[in-house]
């Protein structure tokens, strides 16, 4: 069955620290990949998306993610986090063929200490 794994459930960082959140998926075909963020009290919203082309994708608020096809990974990075990055982050995969279903990971709760 298709699945998405996020290795870190809770991450605590100090401001200015670097961030990397892991995401691995299991699906043998072509996929579209997403990172969503949910700030406290707000809707889930898109951080960035990979469809094709350059495997290094840049998103909003200084986030980026790298698609490594051989590792089935799509890790999220930010060189220097801010207190306002405190949120829950979800990785999602949408297989390019077949149904229009998106598969989400369990989420990583990030807390940034001021």
């Amino acid at each position: 069955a298709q699945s998405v794994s996020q290795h870190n459930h809770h991450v605590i960082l100090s401001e200015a620290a670097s961030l990397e959140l892991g995401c691995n998926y299991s699906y043998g075909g072509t996929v579209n990949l997403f990172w969503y963020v949910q700030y406290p009290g707000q809707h889930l919203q898109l951080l960035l998306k990979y469809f094709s082309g350059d495997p290094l994708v840049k998103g909003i608020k200084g986030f980026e993610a790298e698609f490594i096809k051989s590792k089935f990974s799509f890790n999220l990075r930010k060189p220097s986090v801010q207190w306002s990055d405190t949120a829950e982050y979800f990785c999602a995969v949408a297989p390019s063929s077949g149904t229009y279903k998106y598969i989400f990971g369990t989420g990583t709760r990030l807390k940034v200490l001021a």
Partner: protein
Amino acid sequence: EADIYQTPRYLVIGTGKKITLECSQTMGHDKMYWYQQDPGMELHLIHYSYGVNSTEKGDLSSESTVSRIRTEHFPLTLESARPSHTSQYLCASSDLTLGAGYNEQFFGPGTRLTVL
């Protein structure tokens, strides 16, 4: 302004009641989804729709039902609520742009349901 709306935001009801969670979007998206979200868990897809008069059950078994009579409206109904239905329910919509893959899903604010 294009958006996706859910009502009510919070609902506390007794066991056995029938409830309908409303979801509307103003973006003209064909595809709409209902997810169940519990703390520390992934979003579980319970229903989705490709368009008007098209509905499918998702991966998570659910006793709820949905309808899609209009493009913008995708309500979810529980005929007889039970405490096991206590959860957060998220509605989302998306579209597919030819040549650009899957577009993002737009999410509503969610309905937090508590069944006593």
